[in-house]
């Protein structure tokens, strides 16, 4: 288990549901916060550790699915577990497609819910880790000049310097210089290093026009 503090948030319009869930999570060693409505949760400052949101589908005002949609653009790390009084297939499908960890039908087994919370927190931690890595990788990549960046995108496709030169219609020597500088700036010693780094940063490789192929074969 990570040393970062974890948080379980409960959003339910039913007070006794909130109280009982908070108690259950505390008994399992989690700190739990309760919110009576979606709007209250949105008003809370974003928690930067792994967190999980236990969310009732039906609520006055913004309902569960509405809150899920509202949270998406914020990119915070909370993972959502939906609770509902009755299984409604379209609602469940929509929630799961949008990345919910689980969709539990009341009354549920406490182990079932706690298991879902564990998975959600794990997923939240992974998400935060990946997000941190991406940020770090992006920061490094941001140091490249536009030309170095362009060359990098071809390097990670596995093209040789000669082929990249053909793609970019420049001298092989020039490519070699840009490639060397980029590797230096990024602290990479091999092409696989570069591939991993760009993957972490979420950078897609360039799509070769394959002009070089003709030259190579010629």
């Amino acid at each position, binding site marked *: 288990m990570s040393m970062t503090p974890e948080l379980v948030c409960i959003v339910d319009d039913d007070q006794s*549901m909130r109280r009982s869930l908070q*108690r*259950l999570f505390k*008994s399992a060693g989690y700190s739990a916060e309760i919110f009576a409505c979606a709007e209250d949760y949105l008003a809370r400052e974003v928690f930067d550790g792994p967190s999980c949101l236990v969310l009732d589908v039906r609520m*006055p005002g913004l309902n569960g699915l509405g809150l899920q949609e509202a949270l998406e653009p914020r990119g915070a790390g909370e993972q959502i577990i939906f609770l509902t009084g*009755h299984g409604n297939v379209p609602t469940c499908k929509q929630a799961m497609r949008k990345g919910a960890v689980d969709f539990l039908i009341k009354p549920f087994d406490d182990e079932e*819910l706690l298991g879902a919370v564990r998975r959600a927190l794990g997923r939240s931690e992974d998400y935060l880790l990946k997000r941190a890595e991406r940020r770090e990788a992006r920061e490094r990549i941001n140091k490249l000049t536009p030309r170095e960046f362009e060359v990098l995108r071809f390097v990670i496709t596995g093209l040789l310097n000669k082929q990249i030169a053909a793609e970019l219609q420049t001298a092989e020597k020039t490519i070699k210089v840009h490639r060397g500088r980029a590797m230096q700036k990024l602290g990479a010693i091999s092409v696989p290093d570069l591939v991993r780094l760009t993957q972490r940063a979420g950078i897609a490789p360039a799509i070769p026009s394959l002009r070089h192929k003709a030259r190579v074969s010629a």
Partner: protein
Amino acid sequence: MFLATVIEERATVEETLRESNALNRGIIDSLTSLVTILDRSGFIITSNEAWRRSHELEGAPTPGIDVGANYLEVCRRAASAGDLSVVSVLEGIETVLSGERIEFQCEYPCVTPAGSLWFEILVLPLRSEAGGAVISHRDITQRKAAERTIRERDARISLAAESANLALWTIDLERNESWMSDQGRAIFGLSPNEPLTRKLFFARVHPEDREEVYNAIELARATSESFEIEYRLRRPDGETRWLNARGRYLRNASEEVAELICVAIDVTAQMKANLELRLQRLEMARMSRVALMGELTASLAHELNQPLTAIASNAAAGRRFLQQGSLEPGMLDELLVDVVTDARRAGAVIHGIHNFVRKNEGERRAVDINETIREVLRLLHSDLLGRAASIETRLASAVPLIKADPIQLQQILLNLVMNALEAMQTTPMAERRIIVSTQCFEDSIITGVRDFGRGLPRDDLDKVFTHFYSTKPGGMGMGLTIVRSIVEAHGGKLTAANTEKGAQFSFTLPIMQKCEMLQST
């Protein structure tokens, strides 16, 4: 001088005697009854003016018979001529003359050239040493005719009563006599000769209805107005009959209550049919409630799941704390209080469902309509959330109580709110509103359920109340019909109208009167 005095005295005595005879004559002639005086052997000694005049009219019982004739002989002749009514008269006179009787009286008919007459004869012994009898005849033809008219009227009424299946009876308070039609005797279970008395009458009235009947009759006596009342009879054969009775007290010439006259119709068959119909209506209303519950199952499951889930979570939390050895008494107490509260809440939901779908007798009691509205909205809580409709209440403060079946009242409201929700299915979510309102008027409360949906068909607003009319694909079209019948059974009225946006259903219910409140407490 002495002789002169004697002669004078004698003259005075004679004069006095003459005067006395004249006075007696005058008295006897003044009587309107026909008087004859017989000696011991039956010879007529004298008769009065009325007797003599009756001969001239040729309407007398024995025309042409006067002083010197033997009355007994006259009677014997008439008897042997076949006039049977004279036989008893003859016997009567003879027994008075012989001293066997001190009075004889009877009524007898007498056929005369002037027509059929009725006489009342009274024979008394003559107070004289020589014996004899005084016979007085009185013409009672008119009275007899009146009596006959009454008898015929009674017979006609009896006939009418019988053919209309009516019970008819009179109790004459002055003469302590009563009469009841045969049909009445059959309905009341009285044998043909059993006299109807007030006591017997009340003994037949169903014990639960006795007081009401007594009060109605007494009120009619005091006010001289006729009364109408429906009550049950419990007959000796154990059968219960329903009667619808009317009656009033008749007053005599001196304005005293003299006679009670009543007419009643046996409405048992009708009551049974009504009861059957009422039971059918109740059953139909119940089926409609069961169907409503079916529509609400998701919502009700939610209402039940909330407390059950909370209980399960609390219990699981308690066990974990216990296993960890970190269960503090204060926390345990709080936890258990929550569990109890939730268990009660679940119980209330189940109780509500059970009440709603069980067979009820349609029992009415004092109800606060605002409270019923709140209960229904609680029941609908998650359904409203699920349909993203907001509900607004505009309830009159401190509403008077109404007398209603609380379950049926819930049904009315539930139906109308569900209808409002249905009507807004195609309405944008933000506009889905329902306004439930109550307004008090002098003797009624108007409850309104307004939606902001598509409104009612413009051509015929009343169409929504007809059987099997439904805009819902899965609807039975019975909801509003049943709602209307329930409202009307409560003495109210259900109306529908289109507003500038959507529809409004309103129903009135009469406010409970103070006396009703006392009764029901």
